[in-house]
């Protein structure tokens, strides 16, 4: 029974199948909301209200011609999208959705899994950098360097913001943090600053406006992905979508009391909470123009990091008081 459960866990829910279906749905949701905010219609033809458009895009790209630049490193260039996809799916498995026991730790829920998720979400940045670097295209190289430069901006505030609820909950296990805030929901009120810092840092991690600097279309063509096409580009796009789901899932489980209640209620909670985070991300995307790379680093060290530190201090005070 446990083996079947593990198999289902890895491949169906919340493994590959669920992450694929849900991430394409989230892409549709993001695109539709973004379009409506811009007074456009958005996807409309494939399926109900264009809901299948991201799936159609994915399969269309799979059948497109796949070109590898002559001077690129063939192996690294081809392996990167698959590795990246595997990394974000693995990160998705660590979310406390289903098949975990609060009393015992298991392969998908253990002390320190919050660090593992953060680490796995940090790796795609490296993948993007390597992808840009190994394309040997001028625009890709600039894009790759910008990816790394941005990493130094948003990674610290993201870690500080996500870890401060963990300090109050006195646990580094996502399931336990969620359970703690289900018992004391009012403590979440002290984490509001951290929530916004984390959302903005996630926006930067996902490279969406105003932080879409590494693939700024009007400046450096496709940036990191300039040379990618066909299957590889499809995998990269899916990877970014899943990264968005996992990232918002992480924020939802840390700042919004997680997804309790077993299989179905847990799924409903997961969908509602992640969609809320994604809606916030979309609204930020519609409100801003792209900033320059130096402005981005300035912004994250001058504003984002101090707020994250402030959140950390608040968390420490709150913990001192409740003890």
């Amino acid at each position, binding site marked *: 029974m446990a083996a079947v459960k593990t198999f289902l866990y890895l491949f169906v829910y919340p493994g590959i199948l669920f992450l694929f279906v849900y991430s394409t749905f989230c892409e549709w949701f993001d695109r539709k909301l973004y379009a409506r*905010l*811009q*007074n*456009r219609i958005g996807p409309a033809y494939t399926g109900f209200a264009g809901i299948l458009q991201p799936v159609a895009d994915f399969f269309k790209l799979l059948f497109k011609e796949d070109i590898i630049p*002559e001077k690129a490193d063939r192996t690294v260039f081809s392996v990167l999208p698959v590795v990246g996809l595997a990394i974000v799916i693995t990160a998705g498995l660590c979310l406390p959705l289903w098949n975990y026991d609060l009393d015992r730790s298991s392969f998908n829920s253990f002390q320190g899994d919050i660090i593992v998720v953060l680490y796995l979400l940090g790796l795609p940045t490296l993948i993007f950098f390597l992808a840009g670097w190994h394309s040997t295209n*001028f625009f890709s190289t*600039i894009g790759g360097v910008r990816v790394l430069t941005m990493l130094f901006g948003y990674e610290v505030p993201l870690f500080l913001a996500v870890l401060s609820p963990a300090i109050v909950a006195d646990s580094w296990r996502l399931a336990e943090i969620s359970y703690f805030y289900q018992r004391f929901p009012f403590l979440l009120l002290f984490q509001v600053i951290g929530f916004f810092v984390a959302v903005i840092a996630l926006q930067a991690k996902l490279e969406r*406006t*105003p932080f*879409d*600097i590494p693939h*700024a*279309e*009007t*400046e450096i*063509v496709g940036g990191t992905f300039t040379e990618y096409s066909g299957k590889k580009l499809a995998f990269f796009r899916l990877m970014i979508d899943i990264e968005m789901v996992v990232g918002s899932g992480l924020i939802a489980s840390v700042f919004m009391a997680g997804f309790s209640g077993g299989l179905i209620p847990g799924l409903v909670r997961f969908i509602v909470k992640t969609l809320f985070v994604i809606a916030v991300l979309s609204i930020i995307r*519609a*409100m*801003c*123009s*792209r*900033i*320059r*790379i*130096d*402005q981005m680093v300035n912004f994250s060290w001058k504003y984002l990091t101090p707020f994250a530190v402030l959140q950390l201090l608040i968390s420490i005070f709150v913990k001192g008081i409740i003890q």
Partner: protein
Amino acid sequence: MKRIKIPVGPQHPALKEPISLRMTIEGEVIKDADIRLGYNHRGIEKLAESKTYIQNLYLTERICGICSHSHTTCFAQGVEALLGLEVPKRGLYLRTLVAELERIHSHLLWFGIAAHEAGFDSLFMYTWRDREVVMDILEIISGNRVHYAINTIGGVRRDLDNSQKGRILEGIEFLKKRTGYYTNLGTTEPTFVARTAGIGLLPKEKAISLCAVGPTLRASGVPSDVRKDDPYAAYSELPFDVCTADTCDVLARVVVRVKELIESYKMIEFIIKNLPSGDVKVKAPRRIKEGEVVSRYEAPRGENIHYIKSNGTDKPERLKVRAPTLGNYPATIEMLKNGYVADIPLIFAAIDPCICCAERFVEITDSRGYRNIITMNEIKRRYPSRHINKDYIWPL
């Protein structure tokens, strides 16, 4: 730090038309820039010599898709001056009305493009949606959305009735409200201001010495406007101010254009309310006696100049067009220097470039009559394709 050269164009997502901007950069800073033209030459000036004056009206309209009315008006004014024709006042007012509507459409379009170059796609979508209103007004007046074909030699081809007037005023009222919103957005939205303020600097003296024109010049604090300096059509009777800004950067160019929108609304309301009665055109003869004329016009992008030489037939001997974009290229190089690579599209877009309007061809013939003609084989030998020569990167 090592200097490297990067090509922006001829094919690049930031460029709507082909042009080659060659940047010498040190890290992220541009040290030198060079502009190469000639990817989009169409031979319009030569073609004009084989067409009659009336046909040329429609040809000059097609010089530019955005300031189409500017070119026909400039050409028609020149021809009317050659003929010594007195255009009826109502005709001049209608010409001015279409000219100002065109300015609104051009500036809204530019605002959207600038926002898109800065990565602000929401503003892009909004301005282009509202631009539909002014396009509809132009369609009400002329029957066309892009090439209005309203001008003829000696006046305009269509008159305006009262129901049309009402609809124009309604549209302008709506646009006024929206422009107020954009003024607020364009000058206070923190990320947009961060991208536009302080970049693409063009000091006042440089702007004058490099012969910048139009909003680019006015954004450097020089109140130069053909409509005021050398009034044509009905501008001498219209109430309007020349809009300037003094920060000399891309933000100043945004501000100047938004201010000009508001001036245009004022002018259009004045024209509609004070439209003189009478004919809209006079009949013009087909043949024009020998002579030459220079006609000036303030297009949305800047000063537009047409030089027409007639030789007594019904066709011009020479038509020379100086589109405003050509006047702004030297200033663009100055603006790009010491800027960031990330700002190239925004700085270049800020002059509102219309590349195909500014393409010219010069054939150099030396004193012995020798013409330097390059054959196709010679081109193939000089510029081998990347496919054949693997080490070939770019002819910098």
